[in-house]
């Protein structure tokens, strides 16, 4: 694939409407070749529409889709260098596993011996050797999903589209398939575009990620950047467990921006975002970066603090969450690793302080 463009997918001004309903507004982005790209967002946000537009299953209302530099906007799915994995497995129930996997190869009229060889190799790759004669209904959900993967991967297309591929699996299988998908992508080295609303799934597999909501591309970038340093408030709110403080900008001191919360102030680095005093802005802090202190704790210089009331302690196994209420009635979550001791010493209704390192606050203007 050396001759192919390094950009596997490029969409420009891509939009889709159904009558008056706008499913996808103008979207622009690129996906580099050989990356595991995740489209993450809430249900009904337009991510599946975007994936189906890339696959050619629906026609765009406006805009272009370029795959490896070639404009495929007007081509049907069978003419595009893509294959797709569906949430509902979509296996052909009247064909055996081997026939399902070899379907695309038979369509290409490859010699029977080659079809058999490639199907065998692919079944081995997805761990289904010996199950080729089974009918799809004789397999478990996880096995059916692997058949679907094999059916797509055997075609050796440049781009694999995955539409909520793990949504129908139980929690344990979901986790193991997540890791298996990532391993498979690294093995075959092609571009994977994976749609999900599950952020844990997204974080497990993604090299790059785009947040799609309300038909818009909210933010795109490397998965770790979106988690650690989201630019948009929506991203901070959607990925991870973030506490978001909103208020007008009251002070700008170089890169330091202070917002007024009504009961206190919060300061964060503007990260180059243009802002003026009086603008509405937000600061987000991940729950695992928040700490809870006694009300009379003197604190540290590098921290900033807000007064709060302790509400509840929720033991979640690996972590324990503390729910506290701010003076304006807003609840924030403080999360820490469980230490095997029940409770935290704080009682319900006790006055406390929550604080975070100034560097852990992320400033958002939109």
């Amino acid at each position, binding site marked *: 694939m050396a001759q192919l463009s390094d950009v596997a997918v490029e969409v420009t001004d891509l939009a889709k409407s159904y009558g008056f309903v706008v499913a996808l507004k103008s979207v622009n982005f690129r996906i580099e070749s050989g990356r595991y790209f995740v489209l993450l967002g809430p249900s009904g946000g337009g991510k599946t529409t975007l994936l189906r537009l890339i*696959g050619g*299953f629906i026609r765009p209302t406006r805009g272009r889709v370029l795959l490896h530099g070639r404009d495929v906007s007007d081509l*049907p*799915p*069978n003419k595009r260098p*893509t*294959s*797709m994995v*569906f949430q*509902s497995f*979509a*296996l*052909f*129930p*009247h064909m055996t596993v081997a026939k399902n996997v070899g*379907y*695309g190869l038979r*369509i*290409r009229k490859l010699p029977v011996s080659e079809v058999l060889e490639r199907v065998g190799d692919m079944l081995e790759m997805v761990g289904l050797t010996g199950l080729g004669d*089974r009918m799809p*209904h*004789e*397999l*478990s*959900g*996880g*096995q059916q999903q692997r058949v*679907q993967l094999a*059916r*797509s991967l055997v*075609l050796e297309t440049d781009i694999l*589209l995955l539409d909520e591929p793990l949504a129908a699996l139980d929690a344990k*299988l979901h986790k193991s398939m997540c890791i298996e998908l990532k391993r498979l992508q690294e093995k075959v080295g092609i571009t994977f575009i994976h749609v999900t609303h599950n952020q844990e799934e997204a974080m497990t597999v993604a090299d790059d990620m785009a947040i799609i909501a309300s038909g818009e591309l909210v933010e795109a970038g490397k998965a770790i950047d979106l988690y650690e340093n989201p630019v948009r408030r929506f991203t901070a709110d959607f990925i991870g467990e973030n506490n978001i403080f909103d208020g007008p900008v009251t002070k700008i001191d170089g890169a330091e921006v202070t917002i007024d919360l009504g009961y206190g102030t919060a300061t964060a680095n503007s990260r180059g975002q243009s802002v003026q005093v009086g603008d509405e802005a937000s600061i987000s802090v991940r729950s695992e970066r928040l700490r809870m202190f006694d009300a009379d704790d003197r604190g540290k210089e590098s921290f900033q603090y807000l007064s709060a009331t302790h509400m509840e302690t929720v033991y979640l196994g690996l972590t324990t969450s503390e729910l506290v209420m701010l003076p304006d009635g807003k609840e924030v979550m403080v999360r820490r690793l469980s230490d095997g001791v029940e409770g935290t010493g704080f009682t319900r209704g006790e006055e406390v302080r929550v604080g975070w390192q100034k560097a852990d606050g992320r400033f958002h203007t939109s």
Partner: protein
Amino acid sequence: MRDDYSSELGHKLKWAYLLSIVFALLAPVFYVIYISFNEYGFGARIYEFTTDWYRVVLGDTMLVASLEWTIYLAVGAVATTIPMGLMSAKLYKRTRHKVGFVTLMLSPLFVPADILASSLLVFFKHLSGAFEWLGGALGQGWLQTWFELGFLTALIGQIIYTLPYAFVVILITMSRYHPQQTEAARGCGANAWQAFWQVEFPQIKAGVFSACAFVVILSFNEATRTALLKGGFDTFSNVLVSQMLNVGMSEESYAMGGIMSIVSMTVIGSLIIYTLIRSERLERVARAKAEPLMSG
């Protein structure tokens, strides 16, 4: 369906009631078939088995011709109605205006047969007149005479009559089909026809074949529309009805009735057996799904 607390007697009574209804409905049909094999016909004290009446019927050139026309009509109706029913069912699944669409498709069923037939007759007569005028105006003789009552008009009447049934029967089977399979096939490189023929059709063929059988039966049973819309030919039902109206029931009439009943019951019986075998297979599939052989 029984529950653990239902009464055994009540269950038996329900079955007795059901069988008595079926018996009451089918008894006259079997009686006609029974008489049709009697040498001495209806009302005779003596019963002597014979197939002579069938031989007479099948030796009657007019009756054989009517049988042939009926078969042509059935084949024509199947060839036209089934693709139309299939396309309509596919369109129904895609359209957002389902209520309006299904009302339109089923509307011929809400019009009594006589009214529909006479309306079509008037329409075709006017259409024929229009072509006659047009042919005259254009100086094209063939155009003046090409559209007259005949096989085509009878077939159109038959299509209007059978299409709603074909549509419903196919739609029922199609409702079990998940369209993502078509997309999966397209994603594997299949064009629209390959995806339909290799993936969708094998899964809906039971409905398509049932619709074919249904259309054939309706073609054999239909008399009113064809009586008004046919040209210079008769269908089997037309001959049977006119014979009954003109000369009453004869031994030949019983044999003709017997032929129609045997054809219909054979087709329906085959369908029922096929459906039972299929549902047994689907049940096995469902059981296998509920208890996967392997996990992980």
